[in-house]
């Protein structure tokens, strides 16, 4: 019987839980979570909808894949989970952790227009100080500096349209 061990990363990667899946028969699995073992009858519907009978209780989960993270929804609860097998986990650990040390690049959180540039290249900035204002969907959103430092890069001008994730400026 095929068994695969996974590690699930929760809370933005701050928490890990082990999940082990064994296929017992087509559509029937044994899933071990820590010390508990569940028997699960899984039936896949369209578009990421998964019907599961977990020890006889019916659950309808929807899985929305966003790159590496899958948003698992059960009723009003949404769990963003990154699910890794051993190989992926090693790669992931090698990539290191998130910090605000060093140069921080500020990127556009969504496509929109640069309504205002509040700083100039070389300006000293405080943590939380406004750097730029992006207008999207008729609302203005101020982007603030993640750390105290100096504006070392500025890639945009007022009035310019930007794509989502476009580099706007950097603070070091």
């Amino acid at each position: 019987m095929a068994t695969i061990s996974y590690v699930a990363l929760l809370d933005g990667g701050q928490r890990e839980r082990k999940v082990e899946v064994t296929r017992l028969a087509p559509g029937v699995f044994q899933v071990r979570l820590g010390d508990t073992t569940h028997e699960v009858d899984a039936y896949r519907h369209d578009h990421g909808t998964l019907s599961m009978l977990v020890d006889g209780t019916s659950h309808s989960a929807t899985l929305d894949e966003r790159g590496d993270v899958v948003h698992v929804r059960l009723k009003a609860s949404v769990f963003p989970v990154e699910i890794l097998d051993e190989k992926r986990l090693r790669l992931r650990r090698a990539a290191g952790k998130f910090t605000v040390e060093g140069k921080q690049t500020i990127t556009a959180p969504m496509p929109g227009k640069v309504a205002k540039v509040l700083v100039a290249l070389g300006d000293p900035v405080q943590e939380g100080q406004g750097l730029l204002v992006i207008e999207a969907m008729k609302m203005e959103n101020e982007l603030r500096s993640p750390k105290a430092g100096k504006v070392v890069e500025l890639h945009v001008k007022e009035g310019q349209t930007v794509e989502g994730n476009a580099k706007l400026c950097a603070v070091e």
Partner: protein
Amino acid sequence: MAARKISKVLVANRGEIAVRIIRTCREMGIATVAVYSDADRGSFHVRNADQAVHVGASPSRESYLDMERILDACRSSGADAVHPGYGFLSEKAEFARALDRAGIAFIGPRPESMDAMGVKTTARKNMAAAGVPTVPGSPAPIADEAEARAFADRIGYPVMIKAAAGGGGKGMKRCDAAADFSRLWQSARREAAGAFGDDRIYLEKFLEKPRHVEIQVFADERGNCIWVGERECSVQRRQQKVIEESPSCVLDERMRQAMGEVAVRAARAVDYRGAGTVEFLVDAHRNFYFLEMNTRLQVEHPVTEMVTGLDLVRMQIEVARGEPILAQEQVVRRGHAVEARVYAEDPGRNFMPSPGKITYLRVPAGPGVRDDSGVYSGWVVPQFYDPLLSKLVAWAPDRDQALARLLRALDEYTVHGITTNLPYLAAVLRHPAFRSGEYDTGFCSRYAEELLARPDPAMEDVALIAAALSAFKRDTEEAEAFAARAGEVGASRSHWARLGRARALRGGLR
């Protein structure tokens, strides 16, 4: 009163409201014309209409807000009436006048009423003259920042900085301290210029713990004017409504009656016609003040429709035809309705809009549920417009049942690919302050932390099982597919080998 024929309506709007208007027109046997910008060619309202006209580039200023282009679309499509929806040109008196000159009916109030109510400062003056109580504030728009700041100092913080041409929370900022004034003032001006093409700003005193309660009014051309019940809209984030319900928990029958009568007086004072909404602030002592009158159909009009059983869009069209409305005593309100606005936004990131492709959409159904949506599975929500995807409304005989029903429907609502406020909406409906009915416009900011819906820890194991099974399926399928392909390659290679061997064997046999 000469009846006016309306046989083809151009809907000068987009998204859910365009779809909603088209639906009623279809029921009435009236042909419809949609308009669309570059970004909206694939929009839901375009394929719902009988005709569609391209009106320009994606930014609204170059399409939906461009009066000349909309007028051209009316002429080229042969529409005899225009429904403006809400936002865009709906409260531009100039637009109503231009249509009038072109001999096309405007499904809305007379331009004079819009003038009287459109500039908020003029409206306040008119209402005070009609004996309607108003919130203290600047009597006229203020052009100069220093002058505005001095006025704010005089009436005392917090103050509301508001676009004179405003509505829908655009160009509206709450300022709590003098230190923030400059930044908020300038931001409000830019937003107002962008959203309404008019950057005039005025100030109003911010009332403590105010509730936002509005009265739906309706008037025809024969001198009838009625009120059709209230909507409680105090659940607001960034000055935009999120949840609306009717009836309001703060009104008793006497107060409802009093507000209804004041609303009718306000509408009559400006010789109103069609559907309008008189917005009031109700303070902690249950005093009510006129806030503004929206001279158009409101986003949240379905709440009133559910409670009264009326179709407000149909009534608007009937009034535009010169027909009479029903009498005040024919308006029957029953049960309770609640609406939740489903937005493409991330409540965890200060309600940042999240445009993008909807990879999958499944909407709720079942008893007492209505979904007024403007999107579909596969649609890319554009960055250019308001992030409202849909309005989900539940009706039930009483408030508890209506809330339970809306929660149930929210659980069924599935949107993949973009971030939505669905979990946030459920958190609002579950919150004890909301459930008790004791909430005001400060609700969303006061409970901001609690409302950032955390998933139910009891469901975590099930979620992990789902994620792991999905990964297992993917990994084993990948392995099987690889094995199958490898097998095929092996087989085809052996084909040649077999052929060679067979030839050799045949040769050998010969």
